[in-house]
């Protein structure tokens, strides 16, 4: 089992108290699985992704275990995690456009970074050059400064750097949102190729754009207001979602081919709850058309079908009767 997360809870310290950004998240990734992590802004997907590698203040670790390739990693220990960072777990940040030191040649930065982690630059150089070819970047880019590269080139450069030590888990945080469509597609497909060539064993792709995940992810985890709503293989999330929130979310996405005149799509009324003191029970309760008295109690995140997990009492009961 490549990645195992149990009951992960992380809060955000703010001036007005702790925002309960992520609560008792539990899920697993099989070897080679690319998991899409989606949800609306403020649902906690970034908190989940970052807590696996960069759990720095103002994020506060509360509870939970994380295992990568069977070995528990101390995500609460910012210093201790250094040994795992970059080698076992790596991150392609959202701010990839200016993630590289502006006043260092890119090659020099990579060398200094690698040597600071005890890796000799000349051993890695041939592999680095091969990967530059793979992402269509000229080798001269190593002698250039970040400012001389276009947005798309910088994005791909950071992808190569982050995955250079073949980490077991690579987390990509909203890496396609700032790109034009053509480069977006190229970058997304390169991610898949990194997995196929086993540069990385697993990928977590954090994005709000579900249609990108449909193209490249094996499974999708939907989050709502700090808790896991549903995790399932991509096809079943899109075509047969079980959680009411996922169903409404998918139906609210305008697809090319849907015209206002013919079919008036429906949004989800109301707003997600503030997580300073979230509501008890199921957090989608106020906006959910199927809400009933049992929703006052927090629904468990259970496997109703092979690899199909959902946190909703309605589904729980259907599963219990069928089971």
């Amino acid at each position: 089992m490549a990645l195992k997360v149990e009951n992960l809870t992380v809060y955000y310290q703010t001036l007005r108290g702790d925002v309960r950004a992520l609560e008792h998240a539990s899920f697993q990734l099989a070897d080679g699985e690319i998991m899409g992590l989606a949800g609306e802004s403020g649902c906690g997907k970034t908190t989940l992704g970052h807590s696996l590698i960069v759990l720095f203040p103002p994020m506060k670790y509360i509870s939970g275990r994380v295992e990568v390739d069977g070995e528990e990693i101390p995500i609460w220990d910012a210093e201790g995690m250094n040994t795992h960072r970059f080698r076992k777990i790596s991150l392609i940040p959202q701010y990839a456009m200016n993630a590289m030191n502006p006043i260092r040649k890119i090659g020099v930065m990579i060398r200094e970074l690698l040597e600071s982690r005890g890796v000799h630059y000349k051993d890695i150089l041939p592999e680095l050059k091969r990967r530059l070819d793979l992402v269509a970047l000229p080798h001269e880019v190593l002698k250039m400064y970040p400012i001389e590269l276009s947005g798309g080139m910088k994005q791909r450069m950071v992808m190569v750097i982050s995955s250079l030590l073949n980490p077991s888990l690579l987390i990509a945080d909203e890496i396609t949102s700032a790109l034009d469509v053509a480069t977006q597609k190229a970058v997304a497909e390169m991610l898949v190729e990194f997995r196929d060539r086993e540069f990385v064993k697993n990928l977590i792709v954090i994005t709000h754009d579900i249609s990108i995940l449909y193209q490249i992810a094996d499974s999708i985890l939907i989050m709502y207001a700090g808790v896991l709503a549903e995790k399932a293989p991509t096809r079943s999330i899109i075509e047969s979602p079980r959680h009411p929130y996922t169903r409404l979310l998918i139906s609210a996405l305008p697809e090319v081919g849907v015209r206002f005149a013919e079919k008036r799509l429906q949004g989800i009324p109301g707003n997600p709850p503030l997580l300073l003191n979230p509501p008890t029970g199921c957090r989608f309760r106020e906006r959910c058309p199927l809400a009933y008295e049992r929703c006052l109690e927090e629904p468990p995140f259970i496997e109703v079908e092979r690899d199909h997990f959902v946190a909703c009492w309605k589904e729980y009961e259907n599963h219990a009767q069928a089971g």
Partner: protein
Amino acid sequence: MLRLDKVSKIYRVGAFGGRALLAVNKVSFEVHKGQVVSLIGESGSGKSTIGKMILRLLNASEGKIFYNGEDIAGFEGEALKNYYRQVQGVFQDPFSSYNPIFKADRIFKVVHEEFFPQVSDAEWGERVEKALSSVGLNPAHVLNKYPHQLSGGQLQRFLIARALLLNISFLVADEIISMLDASTRIDVLNLLADLKAYGLSILFITHDLSLAYYISERAVILYKGNIVEQGAVEKIFNTPLHPYTRMLMESVPRLDRKWEKEITLVERDVENLRRGCPYYHRCPVAEKRCAVDQPPLVEVDEDHWVACVHYESGADLVKPLSLAGQDTRTVV
């Protein structure tokens, strides 16, 4: 209603205006009464610049913009104010459209002071509440609150309510829903579509093809400040002709179709782009002449225009150029 005639915008960049940057290049299109036209282009295509020129926030370097037949460049003082009584804009970032130190509903007070001083406060209060409920907001929940206490969706609806108060006839919506979440985005879009029923014509500026298809009747596709294709939305989306439009259609991630595997990314470095077709440096089917002269916009089908050498002859329905199988992957 609104017509752009060869409108261009040239920016002076570099020290003491050394270099000239062509942001918009001889753009012409029309928006008729009660029609929704979407202006589609990626960042840097000049779509927002066009929006700002229509709203007179920027002056056109060349060409003219006509509103009901009058050249808007000539409007000054009262005439400009009158123009703003009929043409308004809503912008992309809801939180940047509000002055943070005032309450959100101050925008109504400003409209009251500037455009309807003669209307009494009580009467104005009623109009505001009517406008707010017609955009799906409960006045009690949203009035006298600071912008940071309202959600993005609510703030955008505020701006639409403001436009309703002026009962404008033309709205420039510049990426108004790109900052909103999927669930609230659709409701704001439906709201815009409902306004059409009041006879409101809308220029919907966006980079998202599916949104444009959902709401507009005609589409104008921009690339680096030039119109590459325009026409009826079904035609453009079902039979895209220009290589750029086709690339857009193929690259946009969809929920019903997987991407074709091949990556047709081409990159020719072109010294100065002034001459020739703007898409030459990335076009997989470009020819020598494409680098020399810029192809004009030609009507190849009823209300379906394209600017590409491959459709020069203006023959009737030309077989759409097949791009599949062009796996030319060079430097990007």
